């Protein structure tokens, strides 16, 4: 994959891998790519890519256990917590490259359904006191059950109840 300078919207520091800096590049098309060296002597290359920077970081952490994500310095910038819920997908969806992630940033929770790392559905919600409230459910029918599982799992992991906004 070749990325030309005019394709780059912005560059952020994602962390380090074996002591070398890993960068997160956002393309003008909204695509995020983690770039770094797999081996100390190697050349920088794409380590992971996706539609959300937190998912890219999450995938790099899974794929490269030595990857050390950088902590955000700004107090205004909240760290995101990513969880993978792909085990709730049907076999067909998994085989066709689908994944489900939840990304929690502060009180906001997003469920991203991706296919080969590109977002195909988004469900938003928020944590309000003791509940995780799901705001929207405009998703393809075949994803309903999987997203139900994902939202329950997310609610359990933050020790909250689950509500749907009417």
């Amino acid at each position, binding site marked *: 994959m070749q990325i030309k300078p005019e394709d780059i919207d912005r560059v952020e520091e994602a962390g380090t891998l074996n002591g070398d800096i890993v960068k997160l590049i956002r393309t003008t098309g909204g695509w995020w790519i983690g770039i770094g060296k797999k081996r100390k002597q190697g050349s920088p290359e794409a380590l992971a890519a996706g539609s959300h920077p937190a998912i890219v970081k999450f995938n790099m952490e899974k794929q490269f256990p030595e990857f050390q994500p950088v902590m955000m310095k700004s107090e205004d910038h909240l760290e995101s917590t990513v969880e*993978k819920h*792909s*085990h*709730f*997908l*049907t*076999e067909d969806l*998994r085989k066709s490259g689908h994944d489900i992630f939840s990304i929690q940033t502060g009180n906001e929770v997003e469920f991203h359904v991706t296919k080969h790392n590109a977002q195909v559905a988004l469900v938003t919600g928020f944590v309000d006191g003791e509940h995780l409230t799901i705001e929207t459910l405009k998703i393809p029918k075949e994803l309903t059950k999987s997203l139900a*599982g994902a939202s329950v*799992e997310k609610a*359990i*992991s933050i020790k909250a109840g689950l509500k749907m906004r009417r």
Partner: protein
Amino acid sequence: MVSNQDKKDAEIYKKTAIEGMDLMFLVRIEGVGTRHDIGLPYHVTIMLFDEKNDKPEDAHKIATRLCLNPPNAKKTRIEFGTMQGRSGYTIYNINLMGPEADKIEKLYNEFSDMGFDNNYKFQAHISVDKKTFDEMQKYDGKTAFEAGIEFFPAELRMGKKIVASYKPTKPIEWGSEYPEEDKLHASENLDVATFKEALLMSIEIHKDHLKAVSFNEDTFKNYLQDNPDLKKHLLVKHEERANYHFRNDLSLLTFALENGIRKTYELLRKK
């Protein structure tokens, strides 16, 4: 006829085997998994390591990248012979011949930097007691299958302790061949209940995965697929538990590895 010297030699062999580190295929002869005289499991040694210089983790590292499918009994011819042990005692062997035996020699050669320094020319064999050796002579030149010999998956053992198994032990249908692709597949055959049992038994290590116990079968399988390290840990845990419960009975151990400890006890109760 079994002489006093044969008995003494068998005891020396036992002592050597108990102290050694050995990568082996387990064997049954006419349904029996252990030697009558000294109680050690029948086996085909792939590599006898020097336990003072060779580390089990190094042996395991090499073993994990090898195709350790057990030999096909129908393609293995047997002959009979004796050899001298390292301290001069006599060992009675059923020697394995043909392409399957050649495969075992190739596996042996993969460990060329390990083991003892000697001029030993590798010959795949099953060491047996003198009585069995005499009784089995009628099968000289026949296949292992015809002689009632079955081969089972490889294990790395330090004495009696199983350090690593290279495939959960799965009995094969009489005389049938292990499919090549089956090497890693058998572990998938463990049912979800057994994995969940192993998870519950090691929950102190896997607190974060406790939620998975409530997953339905498909979701749980997906979860293991997405968490391969967890799956490996659970398999190791399961094998440790199976060995703890049934280490003295190869057939029960085999069943437990494949079907779980609870089911094995259920089977025993029914019997």
